[in-house]
């Protein structure tokens, strides 16, 4: 048995999800921020911008969702 300096007990999956949400959170913020800016600058291109915005959102969001599912799949 290895002596541990610090031990984490309880819901480790929640911590994992919290960590997994950081990156996608920043990414989605950037995507929608720039998307809104693009729409404000060029309202006539709304359709194309919105579509690509949602596409980028879906791809970034997948990472956060993987983090959400992992505790349920690999949970004790």
């Amino acid at each position, binding site marked *: 048995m290895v002596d541990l300096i610090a031990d984490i007990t*309880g*819901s480790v999956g929640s911590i994992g999800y919290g960590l997994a949400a950081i990156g996608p959170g920043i990414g989605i913020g950037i995507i929608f921020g720039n998307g809104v800016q693009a729409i404000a600058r060029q309202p006539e291109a709304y*359709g*194309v911008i919105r*579509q690509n915005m*949602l*596409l980028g*959102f*879906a*791809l970034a*969001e*997948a990472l956060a*969702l*993987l983090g*959400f*599912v992992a505790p*349920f799949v690999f949970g004790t």
Partner: protein
Amino acid sequence: MQGAVVPMAEIEPGCHLGNDFGCGFPAPDASIFEFEPYFGNFTKPVILLLLGSLIIIVVFLLAFRNSKLIPGKLQSIGEMGYLFIRDGISREVIGKDGDRFVPLLFSIFFFVWMGNLWGIIPGAQFPVNSRFAFPVGLAITVWILYMYLGMRHQGPIKFFTNMMFPPGMPKAIYVILAPIELISNVIVRPVTLSIRLFANMFAGHLLLTVFTVATFYLASLSLVGIVGSATSFLMTVIFTAFEALIQGLQAYIFTLLTAVYIAGSLHAEH
């Protein structure tokens, strides 16, 4: 008993805040997604799926049964849905060439949406796509389709070389890029496509259940009980509205990504 989760089936009928028989907040877990079959292998999700498919078929048969030049109410709605898929997704992403895929995209969109919509329909209140097998089945269908289309339109070998060696990169980059592109196109795409839909519905249903259970659990004659219960109920209503938005969005994203993958298979990147 810190953090102990009581299975949903074992909750006593009168489990409220401040009770005598020591039952804590029955936090919902993954067991709320398990169902006993009614008969044979027909569980609640399967029944809802079949019923949803039937509703879609009947509604659109009624809408387009005797189409008129000047559409009636139902026909207008049906045409709106059709044009949304054809002009909003297919022609935007694939182009004119994509018109032959409109029936597929149309079916996928309404099938996924109906499956999700069961999550907020009172009485049913279970999103079919929160059972992993259903999104996986859809994703495998899409995977087979875009792999087949890619091999047919670009050639069996050329499809993979086009995928692995996108033009316009320094030569040395390809050492790293080629395996990444191969994995991301062949393995990661179907996995994320299914997990995105599944996890959204799973999380949404879990969230709604937490607030619904909290409403029931907190309902008791005390200040915390009354305020907490009312707040939880309000949150349930708000999140139901939020879920309605997410469900439509996820169906749209699933269809949009299908169209993007098909477009990528029809024409190599250049």
